[in-house]
């Protein structure tokens, strides 16, 4: 077009013309970067693996296991009448169960309840390493899925479809049969949410990567963290339990206040 004829135009055209050497150089640089990045990532994973799998940590974990877990799970973690075999449950399962304080279990009951965490992070890592060394299983989640920076809307929809029937749409928890329950999800760390989905602790089904992809899991975590960080726009949420807590509040505090006021109004002046 004649109007666009500017001095810069000609210069741009001149610089845009590449020599065949430049293309080769670009490909070479691209390959170098990709390869280098890959090598960096793979070496970091490799070092992580060697770290978790270091023989010292494993043997430390084994000792802790023998002292704290073997009563129910057996000395070789192959299960007894009172506890299941842990061979193949993977690192994620141990990190969830021990990291949330559910294990070691306090008492037999419909399900293991959350209680103060019993082990330090190093001890938990040692237990994780020991159980993970027994057989392959779900590994600890990658940090990229735990940043809670995904798509909250997609996560909310996935949560409603896959999780809300037990955990309630706002993650407030719900009842299951025979005294079991789905716990409230408020304040649960992204790692533990992810691990729970991968391993299906207690009565929870397993949502493996074929079922809900790691990206989708990240979206779900994003939605739950959104709920954690944004209080209800309507005021106090009354436990987010739905119409039951609303009705209870209305009868006790709403109508209670009204009745108290009627008594006040109708009281004879002294």
């Amino acid at each position, binding site marked *: 077009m004649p109007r666009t004829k500017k001095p810069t135009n000609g210069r741009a055209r001149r610089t845009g013309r590449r020599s065949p050497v430049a293309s080769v150089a670009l490909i070479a640089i691209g390959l170098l970067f990709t390869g280098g990045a890959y090598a960096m990532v793979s070496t970091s994973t490799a070092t992580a693996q060697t770290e978790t799998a270091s023989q010292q940590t494993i043997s430390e974990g084994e000792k802790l296991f023998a002292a704290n877990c073997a009563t129910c799970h057996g000395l070789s973690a192959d299960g007894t009448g009172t506890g299941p075999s842990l061979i193949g449950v993977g690192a994620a399962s141990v990190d969830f169960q021990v990291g949330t304080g559910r294990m070691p279990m306090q008492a037999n009951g419909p399900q293991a309840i959350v209680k103060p965490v019993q082990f330090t992070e190093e001890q938990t890592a040692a237990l994780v390493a020991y159980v993970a060394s027994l057989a392959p299983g779900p590994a600890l989640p990658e940090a990229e899925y735990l940043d809670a920076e995904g798509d909250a809307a997609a996560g909310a929809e996935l949560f409603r479809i896959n999780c809300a029937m037990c955990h309630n749409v706002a993650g407030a928890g719900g009842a299951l049969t025979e005294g079991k*329950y789905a716990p409230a999800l408020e304040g649960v760390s992204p790692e533990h949410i992810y691990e729970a989905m991968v391993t299906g602790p207690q009565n929870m089904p397993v949502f493996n990567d074929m079922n809900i992809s790691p990206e989708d899991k990240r979206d779900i975590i994003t939605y739950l963290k959104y709920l954690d960080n944004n209080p209800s726009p309507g005021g106090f949420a009354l436990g987010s339990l739905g119409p039951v807590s609303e009705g209870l509040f209305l009868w006790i505090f709403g109508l209670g206040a009204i009745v108290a006021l009627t008594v006040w109004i109708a009281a004879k002046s002294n």
Partner: protein
Amino acid sequence: MSTATNMKPAATKKPGGLTGAAANYIDERTSASTLVKELGRKIFPDHWSFMLGEVALYSFVIILLSGSFLTFFFQASMAEVHYDGSYVPLKGVEMSVAMASSLDISFDVRGGLLMRQVHHWAALLFVASIGLHMLRIYFTGAFRKPRELNWVIGFVLFILAMAEGFTGYSLPDDLLSGNGLRIIDGMVKGIPVVGTWISFLLFGGEFPGTDIVGRLYSLHILLLPAIIVALIAIHLLFVVVHKHTQYPGAGHTNERVVGYPVLPVYAAKAGGFFFIVFGVVMLMASFFTINPIWNYGPYDPSPVSAGTQPDWYIGFADGALRLVPPGLEWVWFGHTWSFNILIPLTVIGIFIVTVLIYPFIEAWITGDKREHHVLDRPRNAPTRTAIGAAGVTFYAGLWAAASSDIIATHFKLTMEGVIHALQVIVILGPFIAFFITKRVCLALQKKDREIVLHGYESGRIVRLPGGEYIEVHQPVDEYERWKLVSYADYQPLELTPNAQGKVSPLQRVRAGLSRWFFEDRIAPVGTKELEESHGDHH
């Protein structure tokens, strides 16, 4: 008498200035003074429990006001759109226009969320205050002649209020309301033969269809409010016509109402009370979330959230469904007979009809045809109070069952345990409640009798000159005594042969029921008895 002689010269100057002139202007054209004179001097007795109906009226006014605001922005359409409002976790999600406009009201209309919450909290308060008002009417016997019809109107209002509530709950087309409608759809389809037809008629095809929100909207903002307003008018008119009831007390008789006139005292109190109720609702709506539709998301037939319940007033029906044992479903004559639906429907139907016609049942059993303007103290009608307690227990059992899952999680119980306990409570509870309440009433009556005859124990022990120790009893004052002794003593109906000299089976049933109603009774203290008791030392 001709009209011409009555005409006065228009130039007559009346005292009272502008107000007087304005009042006169209106009166000459509307004859309002007769009405004001009549209504303004209407006497209303003062007791807190008489204000519960007012609470219902005022909540209804609040509902009308906030509801009108909501209609400016709500769109009752089930067309699919992608949400594009300010709530992030729903951005881009496909939903109906109804849901999207409800979300816009909540997040993008100034004051919209407050109005939504005002509307919803006021609706819960409306039904709850009707319920409490109805309990007051029942336990004080205020439904007796001449007020039986007003009881029926009031109860129909209660049912209509529930219908209003349920249609409103269904309008936002969120997950919760859709689940509620699905249960209604299931209940309708559970009716043999016609159920499926009715369901398809209601939803315009297979559930959920694209019609139901628009239809419910018409009912919610047009038909039901119109009927409710008309019935409230009749209900209040009857209150004026019948005059207000009053509790027994000195000078309170069937012919005389003791209290304050409407103008100025009562009108001022009632007017002020409206603002108090409005204030309470506003406070609740400002500080407490109700129906967070943004959590529930748009309706989709596949997900059901844990803790999905109807609003409290439909809870008893939901509870009835939860309490039915599983497996009561058979195929007969090519149709599925869902007794797990039919049994709760029948039981609830019988319960509702019984409450509706209770005044007529009691009048028939007692044979009482007198007018009653003085209320019964609940203890002085032990059988009625006991029936009421049984009914309340039954209702409360069903109601609690609707929250069985929440009870289980929050009290660390098993779901099955809660359900089984409530099944027992719903079936046996009413009988236990009946027995206990009746005995408590009779005991209280005995205590009253004791107090009238011997006064209160003062705790002061006195030694008489002869050496005898007695406890001095404080005689009850006359106002108090009036309250304690003024109630009717009923006798069971006696079997009387009819004109043919026969006793019909119906008569036998009636006499039997009457005996059951009145066989245990404590007679009020009579004058003679009272005088005799005064001769005592006490």
